[in-house]
């Protein structure tokens, strides 16, 4: 098992992201609510840099009752959009928003003495 140093916990705020290389693989490391998540930076669609795209809340909708306009809002669930074609992935799980059989590979993140590491 190898460990790749990503940075100090202090360097990250909620919604921050950095790209790093883990054994030659490009990986995106994200901070969400003081937790860290690492996902492979290669989109399963056509190989785009999925983790480098726009970070935002998942758009969700509710129907108050039939016949009423659906209420769309941006939720707290952070997602990242591949900049090549817009495929969006939940940061906490790496799962595609539209099909849970599609996902970015997840890497283990360890925080030790205030330092963030990705293990592989």
């Amino acid at each position: 098992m190898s460990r790749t140093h990503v940075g100090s916990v202090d360097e990250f705020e909620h919604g921050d992201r950095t790209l790093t290389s883990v054994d030659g693989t490009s990986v995106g490391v994200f901070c969400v609510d003081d937790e860290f998540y690492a996902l492979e930076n290669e989109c399963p669609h056509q190989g785009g840099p999925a983790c480098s795209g726009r970070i935002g809340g998942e758009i969700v909708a509710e129907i108050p009752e039939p016949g009423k306009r659906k209420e769309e809002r941006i939720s707290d669930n952070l997602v990242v959009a591949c900049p090549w074609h817009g495929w969006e992935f939940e940061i906490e799980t790496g799962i595609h928003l539209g099909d849970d059989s599609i996902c970015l590979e997840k890497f283990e993140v360890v925080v030790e003495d205030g330092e963030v590491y990705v293990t592989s």
Partner: protein
Amino acid sequence: MASFTVTDADAHYLEDLSRLSEYLEDDNPWKGRFGGDGKDSREDVGSVPVNIFPSSTGSRNLYGRIQRDEVSYPGEEMTADDVPRIMAHLGLDNCVLLSQKMLTFARLKADDERANVLAKTYTEYMLDQVVDPDEGVYTMIPVPWQDPEYAVELLDEYGDERGICGACMITGGAEPPMGNRKYDPIYEIAEKKDIAINFHTGGGGLDEFHQKGYEKFIETHTLGFLYNNASQIVSVVIQGVPEKFPDLKIAFQESGLFYVPTVMHRLDAEYLKRQSEAPLLEKRPSEYMKEFYYGIQPMELPEKEEYLEQIIEMIGGPDRLMYASDYPHWDYDRPSVITERPFLDESEKQRILSGTAEEVFGI
């Protein structure tokens, strides 16, 4: 992985109207309207062709999710310097650039003048500044189908240029549809000069697609791009264009592949009952459609590879298909959509990635 030669049958060049204006005479009022030095201001062009895409159903670029490192898209300008960067990004040996602004032709109904001005200045600008066959850079003449007589003049004047590899007809909005006899002179000169006619769908006017009231871009884009091409295929085939111009190379672009067998089989079913309405035809509609060429983008990737394999077989196999990127648009395809297919052998991949396009475009 084997190294393939790649020819992109459809990448878009985002031409800047003010650069095109340099190819207009000083006394031409369109010089100012295109943003050049003239009395009329650019605003007078109105929403067309400056703002050419649907807006009410949503953002083409997913409200900022789509980004391009190589070019300023979704900006409005490219220069010749952008082309090698795009070709390197996609791994291209040859690329066929299409006018971005011609996609607006779908929205032009009565005004047949600005389409002519755009088509001519685009062609002159591209030949002067961008096209370079020695570097694999080609373009097609945008066909201003609103004015077939003028379109013929353009094909006659520029069709023999080395950097011109085809002529492009935007399939959205053409009324009457393109099997009508009024377009025959265009097909006639294209056949005579061996200029491939590329029917290319377009997003201009999609807000008013077929019936008004769709709420999201995913709805209008999914249906509109299909409908534009399907509507012209039906007309071109049933009105006998391939019978009238048997040596004319015909290609359809940018609606994926799965719609093609749908149109084939539906036309065949009707034709066997209503052959009397298509007396020019000597064989089933699908047989003509198997003689057309198709740009693959945006290629559908079903859950089972065998479904795609069967679709390609129904269309007529790799000899009918051309890799097309549609770069820099939001749904562009990379050559990997072909290189990664397990059911294609190396020669079939090479055929789709470049061989068919070389044949169609004379590259």
